[in-house]
């Protein structure tokens, strides 16, 4: 392992709780057989890891789909003998252990996954788990989950939605959630034509816990590699 790889593994190690890293690595290796999981591949001699989704795997090789900027994807094939590391970031076993009657567990695992922000599946899984926790948890779990979502927002618009939801569904209605960086309420564009000029004709999202993210929180049980309704 060269210096780059060491640095990368160190970063990955830091982004995970130290006591869970070996377990996660082991689980990822054991459960690699389940397809369409997010993977982190460290080829021998490469300075940067390849992050993406496992497309297929056999005894000798692995195919990984990498999301590229602009919504495109690239598939890369690796021989296993040429890899230093193959890590599956989201644990199907952990997911299958979650039950709707304990929404706090969803939030806890979401926090773990949220730390691996560079892994797209970990991030998506975290958003899904937060959404489930927000929709099914009590006020405390909900508030925590909504705050967690803010950090994972894909865009400023989405962050605005998560902040609005966090304020709306917070029993204490914390004003600071709606404040700008300067601590003041954002200025409001009064003219429709100016609003369209500024933001186009994009729609107003719905402020609802059931439709806060692209994931349906009713599908909160992970069975056979799929999210289903209980």
């Amino acid at each position, binding site marked *: 392992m060269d210096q780059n790889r060491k640095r990368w593994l160190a970063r990955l190690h830091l982004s995970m709780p130290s006591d869970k890293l070996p377990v996660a690595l082991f689980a990822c290796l054991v459960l690699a057989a389940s397809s369409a999981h997010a993977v982190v591949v460290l080829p021998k001699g490469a300075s940067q890891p390849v992050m993406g989704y496992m497309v297929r795997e056999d005894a000798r090789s692995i195919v990984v789909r990498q999301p590229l900027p602009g919504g495109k994807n690239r598939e890369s094939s690796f021989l296993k003998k040429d890899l230093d590391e193959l890590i599956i970031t989201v644990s199907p076993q952990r997911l299958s252990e979650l039950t709707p009657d304990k929404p706090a567990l969803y939030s806890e695992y979401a926090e773990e996954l949220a730390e691996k922000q560079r892994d797209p599946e970990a991030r998506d899984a975290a958003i899904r788990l937060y959404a489930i926790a927000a929709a099914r948890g009590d006020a405390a779990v909900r508030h925590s989950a909504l705050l967690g979502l803010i950090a994972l927002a894909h865009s400023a618009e989405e962050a*605005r*939605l998560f*902040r*609005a*939801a966090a*304020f*709306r569904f917070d029993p204490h*209605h914390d004003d600071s959630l*709606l404040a700008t960086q300067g601590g003041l*309420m*954002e200025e*409001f*564009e*009064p*003219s*429709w*034509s*100016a*609003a*369209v000029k*500024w*933001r186009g*004709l*994009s*729609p*107003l*999202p*719905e*402020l*609802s816990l059931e*439709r806060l993210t692209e994931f349906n929180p009713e599908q909160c049980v992970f069975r056979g590699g799929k999210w289903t309704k209980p």
Partner: protein
Amino acid sequence: MANDIQSPPLEPALLAAFRQEGAVILAHERGLTTACRMKLAGVARRLGIGDDQMEAAIKTLTAVEPSAPPNFQAERFRRRLRKDLRGKPRAIIGPTIEAKILASARRKYGLDAALAGQVLAEVTSELGLMRISANDAIQTVAAQIDQAAGNSTWLARETWDRLRSAGSKWGLDVEVIDTLIEERLAANRAAYRQNTFWTDATIRVAVASVVVAALIFGLLIVTRRSATDVGGGSSSASVPATSENRPLSTPKWWDVDLSVEMAHAKSQLDGLNGACVLMASSDASQRAAGYQKLIEHIGEDVRNQETQLATMRIAAGCYALESDDTAATQLRSDLIRRLPAPGSPLPASTVQWNAAFWAADAAGLALNRRGITVARKTALADALAAALSDTVDTSLPARDLQKRLRQLTASAAYRHITSAAANQPAQVAALHPALSKRAAAILPDDEFMRCETAFLVAALPAAGGNWRVYERPLARCVASPDPLPALRLLDALRRGTDAKLIDHLSKQLLVRAGVRPKSSSRSDVIAAVRQSLGAGAALTAADRWISLRDEAMELLEKTSAKDDRELLNDTVTLAHLTTMAVALVQGQAGFALFDAGLSHPPQLAQDLTHGNLPLDEAQQLITDCYRQRAALLALSSSSPAASTSVTDAAKECVAGLAAGLKGDPFVAELQYHQEALRYLAGDSLRYTVALQRLLLELSARRIAMARPERAATARQLAAEALSASAKSNNVLAQLRDQEAALLKLWMLYGPES
């Protein structure tokens, strides 16, 4: 030398008398036939003309003579007869009437029976009247006597009287009828004696045999104490074959009237296609089948009046007297099924209207039929009431009850075609003329007009381009002196879609009302006609709701436009119409705004720049609508100018609705919800959309509270609108669709939402 001996010449007076009587016989017999000669010979002998002079006298009858001048009295009698009988095309000249006519001819014109009879025959033939001779009458009555008497050797007094009454109707003397009955009974007695002779003889022989056998048996017992088996006797229980051997007779529960009707139907109406035989059966199920057949027969040929009356009396009699309740119930159901029932399939042709009225008449007869039980009468009255949707007062005199049932049947028939008008316009148009003609004769004028109007209101809008088939009834209703039909036809005008119908109906109603509307628009025509015919009365709330519905329908049924300018235009109109709906909900307080506003909707200016969306203009127009709405909700009345922006006006509407929902958990959180939405929206356009969502939620909750029966619909409308909005990818489409949902919600307050 055969003519050597000359007969003495006939005395002229004697010859004249002979010629007068002989001419009539000759005319009657249509020539000098053998029968005619015999009759002439009888006349000659009576007048004292000798046999040797008879041939000469007869020859004078056949001699060609110049035509005798017409008998003046006979011609007068002929004219009188023509005059009296011409107006009675259905009259039947029976023996009694004929006897009266002949007596009158003798008394007034001095005509003898032969000449008068000849004139009568000629006149009845000329006028196509039916003349029944005594022989015909006797044959018919004899058939009735046969049917009523059956195999009986005697007749009850009541039956006897009925037959006399029936015979009298045929113009027969009581003595003749008595003789006929006596003859029939005597024949029955003779047949009975003949039949019972052998039966009696057999019984006597059998009894004697039994006695002898018993004696022998006793003797054997005495003589042989150890009697063993004695040969088994012959039949010990022979059941007399009664019914099997007896020829078909009438059921015991038939009374004389029913028997007479049945006999008549059997002999004169071909047994009603076999129904008579079944109805006379001793098996109740067969009788029920007979009733069914009888009523089926009605559908096939009910136009024959004689058949119609006869079957009606038979059905009434059978229902009243039927010994088996199941068969009677079957008959009642068959009758009721013939009545018009809205929702059931339409009659296949206008002939079936006859069957419906036949059923009503038969039911009316049954209700007053002698012998009907209270229970059966009540059951029939109840069934009629249910079928005709009105009470049936059985205490009415028979004639009035009959009339009432016919009226109810006509009304039910109208309801039937009215209910089917929207879905089966062609069939309804075919059935209407016959019903209208009949109903005009049965129903009181106001009731007839009411039925016609209700029908036209349903049928005209559904008829499409074929509305012209109703042109005449339409003109009749519009021209009615009562303004109500014209006022009701305004509804047809509102709902009509055919441009020519709208134009025609508008013109007719305007002429009827004698007014000129402000414009030719439908709403102005309706308002003008209503105001004029209502003697200055203002539009009702219901009228206004209908006008609003008319205005809104097209927009609400339209799918969301793709073009952004069109979306904006629709949103402005929808916001205006929603405000109009809110105005109507306020009642009297909102009518002025509604009346002024509905006809003057705000509109975006024409697009001259081609490309620039008139966003700020739309924003201003929608702000005005929301301001009006807020004022209507009586919230900003103290400071109506305070709301300068669209979002302020919308917030005032939100606050106004929330004020009426205190205690609602949604309202308790409203302030925070609103703040969150404001933050989420980030600009005025999106905040308006966000506030619309609050208005949707609050409006649905308010409607659920005010109109619990429409709560589910309101909730569903709001939920669907919010769900659709969440999937939309254009903020202008969200604005438009949510405003449409708001309008739908507020229209739930209307009478026919």
